[in-house]
């Protein structure tokens, strides 16, 4: 589905002394099948923005159009829409509430009116996606899990609904490196094979370098840049000045270029650096 955001402004506690502008006239659009990386400093407005995309927060002004229809229009069935646009929260604890892991993950599919057999299949599918062993965890209480295990349950709960657009707010925070790699590969598969639109918020520039087809960069409630990872990560100064970084491979590339090594300015993947370093080594001979 396509998403279009027009002049979106959000002010928390409007009219009170505490009012805070979290989004300030934000406009952009996302095409069907994109993998968007949404990045920005602490407090830049990312969580506020993604909560608007499935109707959890209402704009103070501006519009969100889903396939051309105003998300906050009167005719729109927002419950139906939330099944198509799945959102995984930044802190997964707030998403979990059932007695057991299996019941928690089954909650969405149940609301979709699926048969018992299909619900069970969805729960197993989703647990498999996040690498949580069904036998071991299905009957456990979600509140007696470790932080990373809770996050996996929260992600599974959204995957079980098979949404056509998937929004994840810091999905890899707290995951161990293997869990992170597997969940990122799973998202990559959903994006490639099922054409799922993915919007991922993350502070990990290395994860973004691996997956995103386009990056949207936020600072102080505004969008300050948008482009391919290659375009964005070659703007080293802009990225550091707004509190973000660049992937380690891009940092290495920049540091070596400063020393006079002949490398393209826009390398950001470890694999690319490897090829170029081997080339330099073979060309240059010994010091």
């Amino acid at each position, binding site marked *: 589905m396509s998403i279009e955001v027009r002049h979106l402004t959000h002010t928390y506690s409007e009219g009170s002394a*505490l009012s805070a502008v979290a989004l300030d006239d934000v406009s952009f659009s996302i095409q069907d099948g994109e993998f968007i990386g949404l990045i920005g400093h602490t407090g830049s407005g990312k969580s506020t923005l993604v909560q608007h995309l499935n109707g959890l927060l209402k704009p103070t002004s501006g519009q969100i159009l889903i396939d051309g229809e105003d998300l906050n229009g009167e005719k729109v069935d927002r419950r139906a829409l939330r099944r198509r646009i799945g959102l995984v929260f930044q802190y997964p604890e707030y998403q979990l509430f059932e007695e057991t892991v299996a019941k928690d993950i089954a909650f969405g599919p149940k609301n979709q009116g699926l048969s018992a057999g299909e619900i069970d299949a969805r729960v197993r599918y989703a647990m498999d996606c996040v690498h949580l062993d069904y036998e071991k965890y299905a009957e456990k209480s979600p509140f007696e899990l470790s932080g990373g*295990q809770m996050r996996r349950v929260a992600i599974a709960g959204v995957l079980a609904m098979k949404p056509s657009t998937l929004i994840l707010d810091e999905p890899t925070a707290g995951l161990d490196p293997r869990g992170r790699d597997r969940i990122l590969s799973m998202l990559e598969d959903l994006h490639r094979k099922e054409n799922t639109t993915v919007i991922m918020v993350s*502070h990990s*520039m290395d994860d973004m370098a691996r997956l995103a087809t386009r990056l949207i960069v936020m600072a102080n409630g505004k969008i300050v840049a948008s482009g391919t990872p290659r375009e964005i990560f070659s703007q080293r100064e802009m990225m550091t000045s707004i509190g973000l970084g660049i992937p380690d491979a891009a940092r290495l590339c920049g540091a070596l270029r400063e020393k006079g090594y*002949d490398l393209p300015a826009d390398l950001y993947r470890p694999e690319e650096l490897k090829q170029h370093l081997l080339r330099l080594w073979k060309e240059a001979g010994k*010091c």
Partner: protein
Amino acid sequence: MTETPRISLDGVSYTYEEAPSPALSQATAAIREGEFVAVLGHNGSGKSTLAKLLNALYIPTEGTVLVCGYNTKEEKYTWEIRRRAGMIFQNPDNQIVATVVKEDVAFGLENLGVPTVDMIPRIESALATVRMSKFADTAPHMLSGGQKQRVAIAGILAMEPSVIIADEATAMLDPSGRQEVLDTLLALNKNKNITVVWITHFMEEAAKADRVIVVSDGSIVEDGTPGEVFEKTDRMRELHLDVPHMTALAEELRSEGMPLPGGILTVEDMVREVEKIICPSKSAT
């Protein structure tokens, strides 16, 4: 002379109520004053359980935990332990108690009995360190995820404990925030000899520690310097972990024949070693 360790674990096991197996079993380790120890391990390996045992939130089912010489089993020492060993929790919401940011930071100090006149500068300095001064009068529930995490960190910094236990304290921070918080803790460790136990899933952070302890399925399975531990790439991956990006790149380059030494952990290490084997090209500007 034998120095008493800041933290000592002797055959420590912990089993959650009704759990079929212990979350931590037979852990033995000693952490010296002034050490900066990173703790790594897969999800559910027992890291947070370990952290809570160090703070007397949990009492071992078996074995003994001593913090600054005090046995966590003895209730009369709980307070002595908590004033010396400050803990930053995995989820800041489990830590934030007050309705205004500066009062939240004050909370720990009030408990310590710090006189009001001394409290204000400590609160201000802690909030400045985490760059949250302008939110001093804000309600914590009106903060973003990373802002809450910064407040939780400020609360512990203000208490000036001699041991800081940080359970994924930077998980929700942006890259420069993560760097700043880690640098702050490294500086406290270096300049004030504060002992730090730093639980993390970021291999790059662990690379900056003096020592790395790896937990797997409730047991301590590796314990050494970052150089030693990250040399074992296959072993780390088998434990569901990884090695720093530059260590992995160095290994790939070595496998293609480039004569890079072991022990490369950071971008700076990599630049230094590349300079030794490849000359910058003359034509480049």
